[in-house]
């Protein structure tokens, strides 16, 4: 029996009268690469913010690696890595200084060796003393991945990780996600609206529509439930419109 890396029970978040996420009940087993799909404003980022303890739920709860987002936020934060959309850093500091800061915040006392290992894993060496302000979008995204995995988290949250990347950057990131999952068994929760990326990287998917989860299944089951000639894009629009 596989244990859940992420488990939510009727997770709800309202902003005033607007309910951004309604009764999300979801289980993501350990070692999965889960893709959360949905159009803009569907509640994907709210979901990630709740699961990373950046927001508090209005109702319901979520367990991340056995820690409750409501009662054990510190335990959740210790277990997760997070890459926000359009990640930014301290531009006046060097790559090494930025990573040392985030590593120490995560509890690593002497982080330099770990930082070098992670940068080597990401094939991102030779930039240690370069200021992050001079980095391209693709380079920043790699720094983002590096800071997220420095403390070897059990669960990695990626919010629109391919947003704004060129095709080469997208491919590199995709390969990195797959390697993190295969080599370290990291559970990955990814928000995206790029269906092609989901097909290539995710083992299971969920579809959010106006804050409600309208579909959740493994990628293979999802594809098998529809005619073979239908792409994931067709399936997505069918499931999304059926929910409306």
């Amino acid at each position, binding site marked *: 029996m596989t244990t859940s890396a992420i488990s939510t029970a009727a997770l709800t978040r309202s902003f005033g009268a607007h309910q951004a996420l309604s009764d999300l009940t979801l289980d993501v087993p350990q070692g999965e690469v889960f893709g959360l799909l949905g159009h803009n404003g569907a509640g994907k980022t709210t979901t990630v913010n709740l699961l990373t303890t950046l927001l508090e739920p209005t109702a319901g709860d979520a367990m991340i690696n056995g820690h409750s987002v409501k009662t054990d936020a*510190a335990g959740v934060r210790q277990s997760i890595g997070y890459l926000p959309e359009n990640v930014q850093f*301290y531009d*006046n500091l060097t790559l090494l200084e930025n990573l040392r800061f985030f590593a120490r*915040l995560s509890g690593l006392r002497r982080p330099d060796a770990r930082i070098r290992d992670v940068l080597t894993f990401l094939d991102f060496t030779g930039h240690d003393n370069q200021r992050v302000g001079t980095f391209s979008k693709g380079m920043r995204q790699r720094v983002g991945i590096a800071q997220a995995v420095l403390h070897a988290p059990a669960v990695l949250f990626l919010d629109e990780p391919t947003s704004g990347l060129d095709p080469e950057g997208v491919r590199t990131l995709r390969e990195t996600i797959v390697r993190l999952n295969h080599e370290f068994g990291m559970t990955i929760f990814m928000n995206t609206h790029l269906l092609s990326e989901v097909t290539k990287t995710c083992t299971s998917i969920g579809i959010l529509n106006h804050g409600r989860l309208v579909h959740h299944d493994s990628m293979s089951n999802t594809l098998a439930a529809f005619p073979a000639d239908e792409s994931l894009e067709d399936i997505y629009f069918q499931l999304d419109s059926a929910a409306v």
Partner: protein
Amino acid sequence: MNTILTSARHEILCTLRARVALLLLVVFLGMVSLSSLIGWITNTTVTRVYEKILADGLTTAPNPFAAVSALYYSRNSVIYVVLIGALMAIILGVQATLRDRKSATADLVLSRPVNTVQRLIGQFLGLGAVIAAVLAASTVISGASISIIMGAPLGLDPSVRLIGFAALSWALMMIFALLGMLTGLYSRKETTALLVPFVIWSAIAFVLPQIGTAARPVALLNPVPALASPGRGSFDLIGAVTGPFTITEQFKRAASIVLRDDSVTGSPWLSILLLVAVLIAMTWIVVVTPRRTLRSGLNE
């Protein structure tokens, strides 16, 4: 504890990399050095003139600088702290808390096992260390300059008094740094974050003392606290009411007594207690800032 130290160290690094902050630090130290140089030139010039007229038999009076306390030459630093030091502290404070909101790094920080109190105390301590280092440098410059002017090493008592003055300056500058941190946390725009503490500073440094001291604006630019009101009941009353809020005047009063300025008498302890109370209250207000405020973006 580790998180607080990490935040403090990070704050020091970020502050030292910011050009505006560095420029202000250089200006502050430059002013202190220049003040000593002006003191030394004045002393040398007056003494030469005095020796000439003494040799010519035109006077029998003692050299006016002979009776002056060694700490007399640090008097101008009091007003530099109120004017330049406080402004520098505001800018450093605003930058500290606005940085994460402006560059959207707050989410990265707050997704770590860090609570807001640890983060903000760390930033406060980092700023405190930077300001302490600047004041330590200015104290060394002042001490060395006074020793050169007096032609002898500074004694124990004046050295302790200079250090005491630096500690008072730190307290005042940290109050303004905390004010900057607060507006950096709560303002919706960067310009507001800078403008609001500047307005509050000018009200505290210029408007409030003026209300309580019978409109004597020039006195406010003096290193000694504003002189007593001319005995009018209304001014006495307003002075008593606004007194605790005019922390710059409280600082000037305590600093003048510590630096042995003869024009101010009495005990400095009430003024020091008021400064410390305001410092503690401001620190508390800053560290209880809710998590959602640290994450809030700017409307720009």
